[in-house]
């Protein structure tokens, strides 16, 4: 009721002031939110970077040896820290799962956009969303209780293997590959298809010679994003891969990846000890690889023609 005593002019000035204050407050709020994202990214890089370098700087570990040596024996008389088996394991599961997921994912995308655009999409779209919705521990658990015994009984080895990790991961990254490939193919201009059909090409010829070539950079992006996800996945792989420190000699051998060793040993080692520090160095490798994947995807998208 106080407002009524003020003159009209006062009220206008007051509300203008309020508005201006409101305006400033709003801007501060959204800018702060944006700054928090920058600071989170920088903080992650700095904290993990400095902590990850500790084993080389404070403990004097040879960085070259850490990356290339295959001898991982952190608790022995003469401890040695060669992380190569784990780096190899990470890259192996990543590439192998991409090898499975890429044809399946791109194939499904082609089915949805080219073969059966009307009903194919209606069926596969919810399927993809449901596959994304299954948490990674559940994938790991099913891998552990179904896939591992199946491999042990039917294919050989102890079941816990590079192959088991690869299969679990390829199903996990399938939705990423499918949805990005579908977007890529669906966004191709229709006159590409019509032009090809007008020349008398069959559907398969059109797909193979025109559409796949035109969409190639985007399809590669889809696969690389899937690989980035596979490289960083921890728990599902950890449950099925066996976690041994030796280099696997076949796809049926148990193996380990950077993420699985970190998951397994972070809780069991003393914070600040050399073994613990090497885990942080592995974390730093994961961070660096994640930057590398982003750079590669940027490179690919700069090459996109259409």
């Amino acid at each position, binding site marked *: 009721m106080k407002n009524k005593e003020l003159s009209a002019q006062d009220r206008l000035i007051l509300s203008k002031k309020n508005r*201006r204050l*409101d*305006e400033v*407050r*709003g*801007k501060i709020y*959204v800018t702060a*939110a*944006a700054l928090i*994202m*920058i600071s*989170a*990214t920088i*903080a*992650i890089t700095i*904290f993990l970077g400095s902590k990850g370098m500790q084993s080389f700087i404070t403990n004097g570990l040879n960085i070259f040896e850490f990356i290339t040596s295959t001898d991982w024996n952190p608790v022995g008389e003469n401890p040695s820290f060669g992380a190569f088996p784990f780096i190899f394991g990470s890259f192996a599961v990543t590439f192998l799962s991409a090898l499975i997921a890429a*044809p*399946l994912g791109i*194939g499904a995308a*082609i*089915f949805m956009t*080219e073969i059966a655009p009307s009903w*194919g999409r209606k069926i*596969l779209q919810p*399927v993809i969303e*449901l596959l994304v*919705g*299954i*948490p*990674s*521990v*559940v994938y*790991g*658990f*099913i891998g552990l*209780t*179904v896939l591992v015994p199946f491999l042990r009984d039917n294919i050989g080895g102890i079941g816990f293997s590079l192959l088991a990790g690869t299969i679990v991961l390829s*199903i996990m990254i399938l939705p990423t590959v*499918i949805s990005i490939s579908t977007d890529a193919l669906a966004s191709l201009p229709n006159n590409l298809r019509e032009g090809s059909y007008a020349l008398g090409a*069959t*559907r*398969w*010829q059109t797909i*193979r010679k025109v559409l796949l070539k035109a969409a190639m950079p985007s399809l590669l992006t889809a696969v690389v994003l899937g690989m980035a996800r596979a490289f*960083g*996945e*921890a*728990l599902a792989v*950890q*449950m099925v891969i066996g976690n041994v420190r030796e280099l696997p000699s076949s796809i049926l051998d148990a193996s380990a990846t950077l*993420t699985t060793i970190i998951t397994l040993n972070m*809780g069991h080692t003393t*914070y600040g000890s050399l073994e613990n520090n090497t885990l*942080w160095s592995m*974390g730093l490798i*994961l*961070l660096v690889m*994640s*930057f590398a994947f*982003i750079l590669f995807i940027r490179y690919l998208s700069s090459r996109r023609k259409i």
Partner: protein
Amino acid sequence: MSSKAWDKIATSIFGAIAFLIVAILIALFGYILTKGLPVVTWDFLTTPSSTVRAGGGIRDQLFNSFYVLFITMIFTVPLGIGGGIYMAEYAKDTKLTGFIRTCIEVLASLPSIVIGMFGLLVFVNLTGWGYSIIGGALALTVFNLPVMVRVTEDALRTVPRDQKEASLALGMTKWHTIKTILVPIAFPSILTGAILASGRVFGEAAALLFTAGLSTPRLDYANWNPFADNSPLNVFRPAETLAVHIWSVNTQGIIPDVEQVANGASAVLVISVLLFNLAARGIGALIFKKMTASK
């Protein structure tokens, strides 16, 4: 072989791939539900878990999952919406904006275990909180923020330009326009995105292993004092969530009925995520209908 025959072969291969993917999904869900649902009884949901004996339930883990999710969303939603508004309405086409975009991209693509390690370093060790719900929630916020920002930005960008311009033409200030015109119109999409993100957070485990921990203290659900050690509402206590529980009983546990517990917990987890997805569609559509004249 003629090109027509090749075309037929290719078509059937693509059909087979699509069929295979649908079959994988059906097999996964069939397995989870047929194995898990018989275990999920009222008793299973309401008894605390046991570390050594059989017959434990998932009461505390279930509560922890929802509570961690709730705390995470308290941080994520305002920050994510603010960031999204900034990107959609305030950010000019400068180097800084490009840098923020790169940051969002980096945060979105970081492996969750790396975010968990960052959380261990900062929210567990540096702050001295130890394993805590709040540490876990902050780590999950880092993990979830880029999603929320993207959802908000996309939602704001789909608001018709006319509506924004009409508001500005009436003399409304920028922030007032955003607050009273843009955000309400974009609200259904933002909400849908937020619920979908919740589903993702609900099933996340790797980021929580080193931040919220692998254990839960003995809880007294009658104690609502958020500062008491045994209160479920205390945010500074360690909390094992459902997803983490599935991992830990399988890899570190010694209980004899591991498979039972894990089956039941997986079913609960998957059904919850499914409900999140359904709710996201349902609520978004419902609010859109209420707010607009469309039928």
